[in-house]
């Protein structure tokens, strides 16, 4: 029985990519503004706005890292830039972020729900009042357990769902903005006070270890940093962008930039819009009652009948629960993914990855993650402010490490990038990345200020990070020898077949066959992917494994014989290249004993329209083309019309045509043809004559000349002509 495994990657539009990221990021709008206001008072919306602008800058750091690593999350980028130790630290901080995302989202969803229930009970003249934090914590635990079970079973999820949730959320945001705008037009607009030393009012728990110093009260920069530090929750979820990048359609980086802008614009309107509207619409005297569900409170203070406001609030709760519960799931899936990745890298015992007996999922990692999340919910007792404070630790350190890593890579790998964070100064050969430096500096400054102002975050974050870091380090030492040396490589499964046909490969006739040989010389594949629209023409990357003549044909080769680690590396690189360009490729490997026979037979059976190779280090291009032509003659009938492209690493290429084909005429040749046509059209008038008639006539005349006794003279003139134009022949660039 044959079992074949295929990974199908559907490239997504920037809209869909933005929806996936916003699903994760947008959830923070439900709590970030209110948490910030709890700590720093009425100036909070300005800080949220500042954080949204900073998040746009951080997004450009992510875009630069994505331009270097298609699969570049924090762990990969930091490891590449600063080594394994700091990568372990970063991944520990990221894990803290993920572990906290679940509880904060679950508790926030619970708070919205319990807020509405209590409001409804109040309007129903009931004396029952649900304990807010306790009910929210219970709800968060239920949601976490539900998603734990879904993940244990192997969850089914699609970007379609993310898009639908974003549609509903957009409806809510639009209604809120229009209704809020109307309310403000009726009551008058009173913007929150601009942040100054005099206007920032710190809560008792806002300054942590700086509480007894005068710094936040006397130095504006410190005050601004404290305010920003309490608002950073608004920009969580950036890591999702690095995960989604791999699947964005061509042109990949431009689409990522577009997605980044959509995310920025949407979150600016949503997150900052909620923060400003809450301060401007909910009266100061009651606003602190709604710090745990600000959008719910906002709905209740809009202008309009109570019943309509209650309906809108219920709608907000539905949207909030959908989005926040989705974030709980993302946190579980994300933690599972990160821990699986580090386990594959040998810094977490393989024991964690043992599949569940019934469902085949990594249940031990899921149990660990969900266990930690439930403990967190219990310890917080449903207090969103405690959770928010702690959450900021993981968010900020993982961003700061990422920024630092990208900055280090500017000097460690100074080569060309498709995207650079703007504002770079060039002094001689040295580049000074002002923009990237400023973003990294701001992130590090926020991390440092948070270390002093957020006691809970510092203590819990450091404890968690140290424990995870220690576990990673010890495990790495133990499993060093056993770790997979090829963890970075993709896993491929051989789908054995007797032949290479369009049906077996799932490609359309007219496809482009690209021969791949060495993972360092994939420039031919790169050139093809740059040029070809894979929605119209399929691209097949074929690797030939040459067999000794004595060994070939005696017995079938086992897949593992045919597919070596070198080939795994080759296909991983080919796939990375295709993903980077957002194009599809089809991979194939075939046994061969003679290069050109195998290449052309593959092209014939795949009904390819072109064969693309890189230059050979030993055989000149013209010689390759000649041998290819001889092999083409040996093909069984009907022989295909093929173009043969040989690419140089410099970007130049030579194109040869195998079999009858329409010649490519130079502008000079076309001009000559046109002039002859003009002259003849006057002479033969009123007969109608076309350019192709001129060509046809000339060829017939030439053919006749070649049969006459002065054939030698004609050939000699042709030779002279070829000699004359030799220096003018330019390879196709």
């Amino acid at each position, binding site marked *: *029985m*044959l*079992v*074949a*495994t*295929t*990974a*199908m*990657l*559907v*490239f997504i539009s920037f809209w869909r990519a933005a929806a996936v990221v916003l699903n994760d990021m947008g959830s923070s709008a439900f709590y970030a503004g209110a948490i910030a206001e709890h700590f720093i008072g009425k100036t909070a919306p300005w800080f949220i706005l500042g954080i949204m602008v900073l998040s746009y800058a951080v997004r450009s750091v992510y875009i630069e890292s994505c331009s270097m690593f298609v*699969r570049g999350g924090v762990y990969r980028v930091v490891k590449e830039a600063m080594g394994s130790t700091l990568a372990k630290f970063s991944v520990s901080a990221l894990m803290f972020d993920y572990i906290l995302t679940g509880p904060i989202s679950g508790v926030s969803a619970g708070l919205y729900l319990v807020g509405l229930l209590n409001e409804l009970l109040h309007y129903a003249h009931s004396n029952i009042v649900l304990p807010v934090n306790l009910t929210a914590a219970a709800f968060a635990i239920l949601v976490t357990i539900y998603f734990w079970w879904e993940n244990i079973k*192997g*969850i*089914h*999820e*699609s970007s379609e769902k*993310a898009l639908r949730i974003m549609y509903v959320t957009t409806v809510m945001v639009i209604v809120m903005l229009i209704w809020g705008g109307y309310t403000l037009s009726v009551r008058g607009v009173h913007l929150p006070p601009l942040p100054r030393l005099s206007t920032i009012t710190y809560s008792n728990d806002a300054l942590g270890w700086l509480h007894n110093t005068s710094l936040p009260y006397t130095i504006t920069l410190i005050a601004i940093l404290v305010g920003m530090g309490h608002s950073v929750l608004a920009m969580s979820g950036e890591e*999702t962008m690095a*995960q989604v990048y*791999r*699947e964005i359609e061509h042109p990949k980086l431009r689409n990522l930039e577009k997605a980044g802008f959509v995310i920025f614009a949407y979150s600016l309107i949503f997150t900052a819009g909620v923060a400003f509207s809450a301060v401007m619409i909910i009266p100061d005297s009651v606003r602190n009652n709604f710090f745990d569900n600000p959008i719910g409170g906002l709905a209740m203070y809009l202008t309009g009948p109570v019943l309509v406001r209650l309906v809108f609030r219920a709608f907000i709760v539905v949207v909030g629960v959908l989005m926040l519960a989705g974030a709980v799931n*993302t946190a579980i*899936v*994300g933690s*599972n*993914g990160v821990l*699986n990745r580090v386990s594959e890298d040998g810094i977490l015992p393989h024991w964690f990855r043992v*599949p569940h007996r019934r*469902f*085949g*999922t990594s249940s031990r990692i899921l149990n660990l993650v969900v266990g930690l999340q439930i403990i967190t919910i219990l310890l917080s007792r449903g207090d969103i402010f405690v959770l928010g404070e702690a959450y900021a630790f993981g968010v900020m350190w993982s961003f700061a490490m990422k920024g630092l890593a990208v900055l280090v890579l500017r000097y460690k790998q100074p080569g060309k990038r498709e995207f650079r964070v703007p504002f770079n100064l060039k002094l001689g050969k040295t580049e000074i990345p002002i923009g990237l430096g400023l973003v990294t500096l701001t992130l590090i400054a926020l991390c440092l200020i948070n270390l002093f102002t957020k006691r809970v975050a510092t203590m819990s974050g450091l404890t968690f990070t140290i424990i995870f870091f220690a576990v990673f380090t010890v495990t790495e030492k133990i499993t060093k020898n056993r770790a997979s040396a090829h963890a970075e490589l993709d*896993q*491929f*499964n*051989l*789908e054995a077949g*007797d*032949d*290479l*046909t*369009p*049906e*077996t490969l*799932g490609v*359309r006739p007219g496809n482009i066959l690209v021969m791949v040989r060495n993972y360092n010389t994939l420039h031919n594949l790169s050139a093809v992917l740059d040029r070809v629209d894979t*929605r119209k023409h399929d691209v097949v990357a074929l690797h*030939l494994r040459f067999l000794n003549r004595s060994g070939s044909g005696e017995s079938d080769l086992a897949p593992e014989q*045919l597919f070596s680690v070198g080939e795994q590396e080759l296909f991983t690189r080919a*796939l990375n290249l295709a993903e980077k360009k*957002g194009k*599809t490729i089809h*991979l*194939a*490997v*075939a*046994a061969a004993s003679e290069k050109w026979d*195998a290449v052309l*037979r593959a092209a014939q*059976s795949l009904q390819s329209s072109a064969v693309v190779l890189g230059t050979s280090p030993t055989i000149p291009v013209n010689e390759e083309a000649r041998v290819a032509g001889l092999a083409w003659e040996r093909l069984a009938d009907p022989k295909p019309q093929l173009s043969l492209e040989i690419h140089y690493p410099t970007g130049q290429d030579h194109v040869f045509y195998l079999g009858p084909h329409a010649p490519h005429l130079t502008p000079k040749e076309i001009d000559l043809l046109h002039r002859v046509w003009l002259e003849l059209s006057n002479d033969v008038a009123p007969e109608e004559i076309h350019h192709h008639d001129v060509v046809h006539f000339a060829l017939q005349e030439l053919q006749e000349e070649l049969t006459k006794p002065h054939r030698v003279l004609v050939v000699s003139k042709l030779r002279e002509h070829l000699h004359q134009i030799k220096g003018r022949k330019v390879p196709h660039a």
Partner: protein
Amino acid sequence: MRNPGGCTEFNRHAIHESGGVPANSNKEIVVNVIYTDLAGTLAALQSAETLARQLRARIALLAAHTVPYSLPVTRPPIALEFASQRLLALARKRNLQTSIEIYICRDRTLCLLHALYSRSLVVLGAKKRWWPTRDAKLAMRLQSAGHQIVVVEPAA
């Protein structure tokens, strides 16, 4: 030809191994069974067996596993070894000679739409419910794409 509709682009990580020699492509009839759950798939296999006998067709068991965006598509939450063993066990249980195709993807419907040849015969096992279930929605989508769908209800 496989149906490219519904899929903007796709990427196959499967490596096709071949001697490079074309063979005669015989257009055999294939009864495609889509994995839904254990009970549903067993019932679908049973029906497919009867259909295959009548049509002198081959049975192909297809399973599409969705991978969340937070994980690389090549690292599904379900261990592939486990998934293939589960399908092999199902096929063996009915003593069937079938090919098994496991797809790992982001979207089950899009993936199956791409994996199936146009106008395929598809058998799908799913419990009937009064609300549109995931499997019922899949059946409807495949049907609207031109495939012939047989929905089998597993025994209670």
